[in-house]
């Protein structure tokens, strides 16, 4: 399959020095050459390790502003580069670049937004994350008016129309739910597709990931939508 050169993959990263190059290699191995890495104020060498990789646009927040803010910066960059399709992935290597293809196929079928769904039989997901996600789904339904099976998934694809219309204000993990609200608000056509995830010891041990404290913060932020 010939890959559209207007497809941009956005990787928001924060202190991912040890894995980000492997994540980029995985994406390139699938044939995607346009990658925007947004370093969200890392204190390690994440930015330096990606800035000289061919085809990678390495941007850097000089202050840590959160995953949502980093994705928004990436999307603004993709718009500037005339992207037609944008795919966002987590930078810690939990997503599989193989899944990008089927998400882009759905965009080409006419969907505006494709949401990756981690919660199906093929994935081994820690129970605590299953519980957090279910709670997140319920609150997303309450505050955003749309039921989705995986409201906190980081692997998502957007059409040109979607990136023009979606206007987010939040900076951190509540961004994922705010996108759902924007889908509803703008009447965008969306679909959820099953994706594979791998929760390595590395990704499980990241303190920035969703935990109970961050979950409560996210919930309070959702109240301010």
């Amino acid at each position, binding site marked *: 399959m010939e890959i559209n050169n207007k497809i941009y993959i956005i990787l928001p990263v924060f202190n991912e020095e040890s894995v980000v190059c492997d994540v980029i290699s995985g994406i390139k191995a699938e044939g995607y050459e346009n990658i925007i890495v947004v370093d969200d104020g890392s204190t390690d060498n994440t930015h330096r390790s990606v800035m000289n990789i061919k085809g990678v646009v390495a941007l850097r927040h000089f202050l840590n502003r959160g995953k949502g803010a980093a994705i928004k910066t990436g999307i603004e960059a993709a718009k500037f580069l005339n992207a037609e399709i944008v795919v966002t992935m987590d930078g810690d290597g939990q997503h599989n670049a193989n899944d990008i293809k089927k998400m882009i196929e759905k965009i080409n079928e006419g969907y505006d937004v494709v949401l990756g769904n981690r919660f199906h039989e093929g994935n081994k997901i820690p129970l605590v994350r299953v519980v957090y996600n279910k709670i997140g789904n319920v609150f997303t339904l309450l505050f955003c008016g749309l039921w989705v099976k995986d409201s906190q998934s980081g692997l998502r694809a957007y059409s040109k129309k979607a990136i023009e219309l979606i206007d987010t*204000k939040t900076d951190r993990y509540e961004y994922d739910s705010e996108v759902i609200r924007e889908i509803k608000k703008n009447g965008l056509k969306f679909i959820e597709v099953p994706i594979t995830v791998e929760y390595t010891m590395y990704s499980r041990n990241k303190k920035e990931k969703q935990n109970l404290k961050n979950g409560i913060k996210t919930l309070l932020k959702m109240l301010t*939508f």
Partner: protein
Amino acid sequence: MIIKLSVYQIVILIISLYFIFGATAKYIKKEEGQTFIKFFFAIAVWSGIIIFSIFPNLTRTISLKLGFGENLNTMIFIGFIIVFMIIFRLINIMERIERNISEIVRKEALSKLENKKDEMS
């Protein structure tokens, strides 16, 4: 049961309803800066004012149950309203500052993109 209202109660009722309708309209229209939590607190505060203005004896009942004197009760009530208004204002200011910081950081990051675009083409 017909409640006889004095002029000041009617005035308070009208003012409170005006703010409740205003807050509801802003929330429904999704105006800039309007959020669920602000809407919720606005409704709670102004509804409380309506209830206590129509049923002033309620404050006496509550204060007696809580063991406060009547004057202190009024002071506490006014104090709550002032504190709520200050909290609203602080939340607004904090949200605006947070958004501005993110925008500055984003603009600085994107300013280097034009050079990158030239390199890629």
